[in-house]
C-alpha cells in the first residue's frame, strides 16, 4: 500500500450517502419547499440554480444561433429580413457571452465545488452569493425585455457611434448588461475572499486544487476589469438617451476611446470565460489519466500569468483603427505572451496524459476536444496577433471562427466535461456512459463542421455580420449550417440522457471516478454543511495519484 493512502484511511471522511438518513440529509432533500430553494444560502443549491438558469440562457442563445445560420443558408434573404438578422446575431452574442459563458462555470460549478475543494462549509459571503444570482437574473430580465421590445442591432461589441444613434432599444439591453456586470463582480469578490480565508487546515496555497487556482485567477480579472465595462456601458446608455457626444465624432467625441475602454474589459473577459475551462480540464485530465498533474505550480502560475498579461493585450482589436504602428507592434508582442502562458498549460496537460492509464470516459472525450480547440484556436490567435496578418482577416469570418474555436469551443468542452464529471457528485446519480460518448463525439464533430468552413470563408474574404453574400460563398455556408444542426443534435441527446439519469439513474457512490480531488471526500450528493462528522484531513496534494491502479483510490463507500 502506498503511503499516500491516508486520505482514504481517514475514518468519517467519507460518510455513507443515504438520502433517508434522518440527521444528515443531502443538500438536495434538506428542505423541499420552493422557498427553501429560492432563498437558500447554501452554495450548492445556489450552484444548482445557476446551472438551471445558464442552461436556459444557453438554449435561448442557441436558438438565435440557429436562426442566424439558417438565414445564411442562401446568398439572399432566406427566412428573415435584414433588420431581424442584425438583431438575431446581436442577441445571440449578448446572451451567449454575458448570460452563458461568463457566469456558467463559475456560477454553477465554481459555487458548488469551491467550498468543497477548500474544505469549507460555504463561501465567505453566502448572502452576497445569492444576491449575485438574483442580480444576474434581474439583468437578464431587463435585457430580455429589451430584446422583445425592439431588440438591438449593434452586434455584441456595441461599437459607437452607431450604438449611440441606432433607433433600436440599446438602453435597456446595455443597462441589463451593466447589472449582470455587478453580478460578475460580486461572484469574483466572493471567491477571492473565500480562497483567502476559508481554506481548511492543511490546504495551503500550493495544495489547492487547480480548479480553485483557475477560479481565483478568473475572479481577479472579474474584479479588476468589470468596473471599467460598467462605466463604459453607462456612458453609452447616457449617450443613447441624452446624446452628450462623448463617443460621437460629430460632437468632438472619440469612438476609438470607446474601443479602448470596451476592449480593456472585453479582452480580459475572454479569459474570464476560458480560464475556468482550463481549471476544469486540469481536474479532469488528472483524474482520468490517473496521474499527478504534471507541473502543478506551472499550471497554477500560468493562470495568474494569463490573467495579468490579459490586461495588456486589448489593443490587438484596434490594429485597423488608425493606431500607430508602434502601438500595434507593442500590442502584438504583448498578445503573443498570452499564447506562451497558454502553451505552458497545454504542455503540462499533455505531459499528464503521457504514460497515464487513461480511462476514456465522457469527460475525457471532452478533454480531447478541448485540447484540440485550444491549440487550433490559440494558434489562429497568434497568427491574428501579427498585425500585418490581422489587416486582411479583420472583421471577416476568420475572426468569428477564431473566437468560437478558442472561446466557445474550450468553454463548451469544459462545461460539458464539468457537467459529466461532477454530475454524480452534484446529483448522486450516474448517467449512461455510452450515450455520453456518442453525444460528445457529435458535439465535437458538429463544432468542427460549423467553424472550419468559417475559417475558410473568412480567409476567402467573407465579412462577418453580413446579411447577403456572393454566390461563391454558398457551399461553405451550407456546410457550416449543417454542422450547426449536428451540434444542436448532439446537445439534444445530452439533454435527454442527463434528464433521464436525474430521474432514473442509478445511485452514484461517493467517488465513482476514484478521484483524488478534495471535493470527492464527502458524500454524493453532499450533506447540507458539506461534511458530516470530523472534517477530512488534507495531507496529500489534491492531484496525487501514485500509480496507474484504479483500486489505489478506494471507492470509499
Amino acid at each position, binding site marked *: 500500500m502506498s503511503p499516500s493512502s491516508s486520505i482514504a484511511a481517514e475514518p468519517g471522511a467519507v460518510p455513507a450517502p443515504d438520502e433517508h438518513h434522518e440527521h444528515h440529509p443531502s443538500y438536495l432533500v434538506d428542505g423541499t419547499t420552493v422557498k427553501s430553494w429560492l432563498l437558500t444560502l447554501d452554495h450548492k443549491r445556489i450552484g444548482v440554480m445557476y446551472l438551471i438558469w445558464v442552461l436556459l440562457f444557453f438554449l435561448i442563445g442557441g436558438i438565435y444561433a440557429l436562426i442566424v445560420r439558417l438565414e445564411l443558408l442562401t446568398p439572399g434573404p432566406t427566412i428573415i429580413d435584414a433588420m431581424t438578422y442584425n438583431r438575431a446575431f446581436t442577441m445571440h452574442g449578448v446572451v451567449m457571452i454575458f448570460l452563458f459563458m461568463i457566469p456558467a462555470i463559475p456560477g454553477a460549478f465554481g459555487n458548488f465545488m469551491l467550498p468543497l475543494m477548500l474544505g469549507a*462549509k460555504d463561501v465567505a459571503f453566502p448572502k452576497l452569493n445569492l444576491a449575485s444570482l438574483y442580480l444576474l437574473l434581474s439583468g437578464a430580465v431587463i435585457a430580455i425585455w429589451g430584446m422583445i421590445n425592439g431588440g438591438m442591432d449593434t452586434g455584441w461589441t456595441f461599437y459607437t457611434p452607431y450604438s449611440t444613434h441606432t433607433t433600436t432599444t440599446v438602453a435597456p439591453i446595455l443597462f441589463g448588461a451593466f447589472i449582470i456586470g455587478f453580478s460578475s463582480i460580486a461572484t469574483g*469578490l466572493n471567491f477571492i475572499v473565500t480562497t*483567502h480565508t*476559508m481554506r481548511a487546515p492543511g490546504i495551503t496555497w500550493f495544495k489547492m486544487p487547480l480548479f480553485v487556482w483557475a477560479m481565483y485567477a478568473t475572479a481577479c480579472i472579474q474584479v479588476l476589469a468589470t*468596473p471599467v465595462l460598467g462605466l463604459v456601458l453607462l*456612458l453609452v446608455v447616457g449617450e443613447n438617451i441624452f446624446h452628450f457626444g462623448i463617443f460621437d465624432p460629430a460632437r468632438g467625441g472619440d469612438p476609438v*476611446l470607446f474601443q479602448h475602454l470596451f476592449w480593456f474589459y472585453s479582452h480580459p473577459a475572454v479569459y474570464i470565460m476560458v480560464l475556468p475551462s482550463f481549471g476544469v480540464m486540469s481536474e479532469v485530465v488528472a483524474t482520468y489519466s490517473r496521474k499527478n498533474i504534471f507541473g502543478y505550480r506551472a499550471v497554477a502560475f500560468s493562470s495568474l500569468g494569463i490573467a495579468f498579461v490579459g490586461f495588456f493585450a486589448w489593443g490587438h482589436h484596434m490594429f485597423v483603427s488608425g493606431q500607430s504602428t508602434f502601438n500595434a507592434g507593442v500590442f502584438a508582442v504583448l498578445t503573443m505572451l498570452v499564447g506562451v502562458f497558454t502553451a505552458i498549460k497545454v504542455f503540462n496537460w499533455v505531459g499528464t496524459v503521457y504514460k497515464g492509464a487513461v480511462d476514456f470516459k465522457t469527460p475525457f472525450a471532452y478533454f480531447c476536444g478541448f485540447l484540440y480547440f485550444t491549440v487550433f484556436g490559440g494558434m489562429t490567435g497568434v497568427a491574428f496577433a501579427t498585425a500585418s496578418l490581422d489587416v486582411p482577416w479583420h472583421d471577416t469570418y476568420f475572426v468569428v471562427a477564431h473566437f468560437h474555436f478558442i472561446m466557445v469551443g474550450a468553454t463548451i468542452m469544459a462545461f460539458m466535461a464539468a457537467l459529466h464529471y461532477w454530475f454524480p457528485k452534484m446529483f448522486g446519480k450516474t448517467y449512461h456512459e455510452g450515450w455520453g460518448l456518442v453525444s460528445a463525439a457529435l458535439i465535437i464533430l458538429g463544432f468542427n463542421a460549423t467553424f472550419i468552413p468559417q475559417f475558410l470563408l473568412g480567409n476567402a474574404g467573407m465579412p462577418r455580420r453580413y446579411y447577403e453574400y456572393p454566390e461563391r460563398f454558398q457551399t461553405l455556408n451550407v456546410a457550416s449550417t449543417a454542422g450547426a444542426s449536428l451540434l444542436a443534435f448532439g446537445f439534444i441527446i445530452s439533454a435527454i440522457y442527463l434528464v433521464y439519469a436525474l430521474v432514473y439513474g442509478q445511485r452514484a457512490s461517493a467517488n465513482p471516478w476514484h478521484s483524488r480531488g478534495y471535493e470527492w471526500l464527502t458524500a454524493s450528493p453532499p450533506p447540507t454543511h458539506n461534511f458530516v462528522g470530523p472534517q477530512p484531513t488534507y495531507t496529500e496534494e489534491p492531484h496525487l495519484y501514485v500509480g496507474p491502479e484504479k483500486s489505489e483510490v478506494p471507492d470509499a463507500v
Partner: protein
Amino acid sequence: MQSSSAAGTAGAPHVPHVAAHFASREVQDHAARLGMWLFLATEILLFAGLFVCYANYRFLFPDAFAEASRHLDLTMGTINTLVLITSSFTAAMAVHYAKEGENKKVVWMFVLTILMALGFLVIKYFEYAHKFHEHQLPGPYYAYPGIQLPGVSMYFTIYFLSTGLHAFHVIVGMIVLGWVTLKAMRNEFNYSNYTAVELGSMYWHLVDLVWIFLFPMLYLI
C-alpha cells in the same frame, strides 16, 4: 463604557455573532475587511474609466479644457474639499472611539460626518444651479456664450458625469454611515467588535479620496 461589563445586562457589550461557516471571529473579520478592500478597488476602477476619458479629451482639446476649468467656482470647490477632508477625519475618529467601546462618541462622530456630507451636497447644489443658469451644460445642452472653443461641451459633460457619480457615492455613503450610526446607538461596538464602523469609514474615505482626485483634475489644472 468598558467592555468588561457583564453580558446580558443593559448596555453590555454586544456579543458579535460568528456565522456558522466561519472558523472564528478573526477569520470572519478578516473576510469582511478583505471584501471591503476589493470592493473599494472596483469603485476606484469605475472612476478610473472617467479619468481616462478626461485625459483623452484634455489631450485633444487642451485650450477648451484649460479655459473651462477656470470657469468653475474655485471657492466653493475648495470649501467642499475642506469639508470632505474634515468629514474623513471625524469618520476616522469614529473608528477610534468604537475600539474603545465609546458608542456615544461614535454616534457623534458619524452624525458630524453625515452633516458635513449634507453640507457638501448643498454646496454642490449651488454650484450646479449656477452652471444650469449659465447653460454650462453637457453636450448638446451647452449654450454658454462665454467660452466658444471646440470641445468645451466635452469638459462639462465630464464635469457633470464625474461629480454626479461622486455625489451619488456621497449619498450612498450617508446611508451606510446612517445605518452604522443606528448600530452605535444600540451600543453594539466595543474593542472586539467594531468591523462595521471600520468598513463604513473605509467607504467614506474612498468617497473623500475620489474627490481629492476630482478636485485638482476639474478645478485646478
